[in-house]
């Protein structure tokens, strides 16, 4: 089998896994002000702790999907990794800052019983959780849309090239989808008022997502789509509408599955529109990066394939185990008194 194609597909899967998994924890983080504001200060604090505890055991593992996507790109398509990471220099810097402050927020917020301290880390969590999916969307959309890449496979644009309307729309689509996905995750994992509020907000967010996602995928489809990318576009749209419907009928599991499928099929659409390029050029006389000219040697691809075949199932098993272990719904009554130092 053609291993270049296999690795193109696997990297697509890693991105899909990333948007499906970290997507909901981005959503939960970004919805802190919307769903984590209660009747009084104490209620607000408890609600926020409930929300953060639902993603507590998972966000760190979820983020590894991004690192693995990066590492796999480096190993399987070094030229793609090199061109993409140097082209998206400033957006990636922002993404890293967003992830850093957000992760520190998760870890440090509860470490001091001090209102000002917690508010600052809340801002870090919210800001990071909004910025990161937006930036991921901008980057991925630019990859598919095409960028000025010269004959030496070097990026020849500037940071302004990256801020084109389609890419910004793509950023908003990933952000909106993460918010919806996060809201549906909360309906599934919480009890009480948060669950109800998340359900109501989820409907609004879902409809908003439908608009930006359809616009993004439609625009991408018209410029660089294939038959198969239109098929996945339709699947994405149908699953999103199904998710909104399931949410309205309090079928929380199905609503969450629906947005998960949407996230995965959005990535599939991107990758199908991209194939056989990995980074098309918009420059006359430039060279597009393809799965052929960007890839590693056959030996490296073989080694990587064996590693993926052997170890991915193991990872999936223990990841599944954690979701099973922490499957219980959480409500404000489960939140213990703060144990942090003041």
């Amino acid at each position, binding site marked *: 089998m053609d291993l270049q194609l296999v690795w193109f597909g696997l990297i697509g899967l890693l991105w899909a896994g990333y948007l499906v998994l970290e997507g909901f924890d981005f959503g939960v983080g970004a919805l802190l002000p919307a769903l984590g504001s209660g009747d009084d200060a104490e209620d607000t604090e408890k609600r926020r702790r409930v929300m953060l*505890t639902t993603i507590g055991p998972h966000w760190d593992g979820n983020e590894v999907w991004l690192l693995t996507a990066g590492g796999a790109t480096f190993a399987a398509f070094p030229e793609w990794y090199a061109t993409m990471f140097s082209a998206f220099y400033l957006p990636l810097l922002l993404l*890293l800052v967003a992830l850093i402050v957000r992760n520190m927020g998760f870890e440090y917020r509860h470490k001091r019983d001090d209102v000002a301290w917690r508010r600052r880390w809340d801002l870090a969590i919210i800001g990071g959780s909004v910025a990161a999916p937006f930036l991921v969307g901008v980057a991925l959309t630019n990859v598919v849309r095409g960028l000025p890449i010269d004959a030496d496979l070097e990026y020849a644009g500037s940071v302004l090239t990256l801020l084109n309307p389609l890419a910004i729309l793509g950023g908003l689509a990933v952000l909106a989808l993460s918010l919806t996905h996060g809201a549906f995750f909360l309906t599934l994992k919480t009890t009480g008022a948060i669950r109800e509020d998340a359900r109501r907000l989820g409907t609004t967010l879902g409809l908003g997502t439908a608009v930006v996602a359809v616009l993004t995928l439609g625009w991408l489809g018209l410029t660089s789509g294939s038959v198969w990318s239109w098929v996945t576009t339709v699947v994405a749209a149908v699953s999103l509408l199904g998710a909104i419907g399931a949410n309205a009928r309090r079928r929380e599991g199905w609503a969450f599955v629906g947005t998960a499928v949407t996230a995965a099929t959005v990535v599939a659409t991107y990758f199908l529109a991209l194939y056989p390029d990995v980074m098309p050029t918009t420059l006359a006389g430039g060279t597009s990066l393809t799965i052929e000219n960007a890839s590693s040697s056959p030996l490296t691809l073989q080694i990587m394939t064996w590693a993926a075949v052997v170890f991915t199932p193991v990872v999936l098993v223990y990841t599944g185990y954690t979701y099973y272990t922490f499957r219980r719904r959480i409500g404000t009554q489960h939140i213990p008194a703060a144990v942090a130092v003041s």
Partner: protein
Amino acid sequence: MGSLDVARWQFAITTVYHFLFVPVTIGLSAVVAYFHTQWVRTHRPEYYRLTKFFGKLFLINFALGLVTGIVQEFQFGMNWSDYSRFVGDIFGAPLAFEALLAFFLESTFLGVWIFGWGRIPEKLHASSMWLVHIGTVLSAYFILAANSFMQNPVGYRFNPETGRAEMADFLAVLTNKVQLVTFPHVVLSAYMVGGAVVMGVALWLLRREAGTDDEPLYRRAVRVGAVVSLVAALGVVVSGDIQGKIMTEVQPMKMAAAEALYETTDNAPFSVLSIGPLDGSEATRIIEVPGLLSFLGTGSVDGTVDGINDLKGSERAMAEKVVERYGPDVAPLVLTDDYTPIVPVAYWSFRLMMGLGFLMMALALAALWVTRGQGVPRSRWWTVVAVVGPLLPIFANSFGWIFTEMGRQPWLVYGLMTTATGVSPSVSVAEVWVSMVVYTLLYAALAVVEVKLFLTYVHRGAEPFVDPAEHGDADEDAPLQFAY
């Protein structure tokens, strides 16, 4: 500064900073896992309290190690895209393995450990911290394999068609002889750090709590920390000695720079300290040990150690041979004016690495001595030991890395690619400056926050024992034992 210099400074700053937390993570995860296992085995409250206490300190540290590690993986592509293109075929694989085998394990089971109190069987709970630890060690293995390739490229072949180094033998990359000795050296240094952190923190609390019920608790922690640190240190010395000999063989220039040895010498001495510019002119060596450098480098006091002046020529010859073999296209990759690293940096970082390490060993011995029986360290100097103890091996680690990386210069991949040719051509100086300033300011701010938080938690000491068995979990609405 051009983008090359700024990118190098950025790599230095972000990597040294990242590696302040890495050894603590590796070492402390093992000690916490040990305490946790002891708790599960004996159900003695002191082990529960030590697990919880050092577990919190571990997490405060882990957060920073994690976030600064993400920057590392992105940095190769962002700042060093030509390097990534040239060696990605070989260098990328260990990074992908690291993510797949180590990061998932570490992150997932850390989540299980943090939130597992009262929610999973206790044996599984203790095992989850061991799995975190195994993840950190695996991670070290793969990233060190990648680094060892840069010190001593093996298992590759140059492909003139693509102009890249390509994988020829992955097993050879993973069992690089530099790797096989660097890995134990680095992991044992991390245990040394983990032990030292436990020892230092507990020493401070032992002095404060002397005479209270908590005295035995902290005495035990001091002794566990000191023993871990000492035993690990012995391994660090042994592996470091072997490493010196391998380095003399594969990177003789680095060894010569470590002693600022300009002329090839038999029975070469090792200077403990010196005064002067270390540029080959008159230098005053203080406390010179005859034959020691020869011994470190060759295993015999009479061995010949090549000097910088001769090695300059042989490095150039090595580079010219590469050009001869692979054609003029590779000339820009390997030819440069001077093949000498910055000698004072190599000389001093080498001494600081060893000196701080040996000092730590002395402090650990002293701590064991003073806490024997019912002993309590009374002198106020022990406060200094408590603070300095953990910092010594952490900085020894930093200097070790500064030595090994700066000693390799001007090479990025030894004998194959100079650092100057690895930088991203499409990234502007302004962009590199922006990212360097952003990282530096952000990292500085986070350092202040983490140190303050760490000290606050140290000051609070181990919490009183609450039997987790009495914490009923039968009631569905009972509060969780841990929540964010």
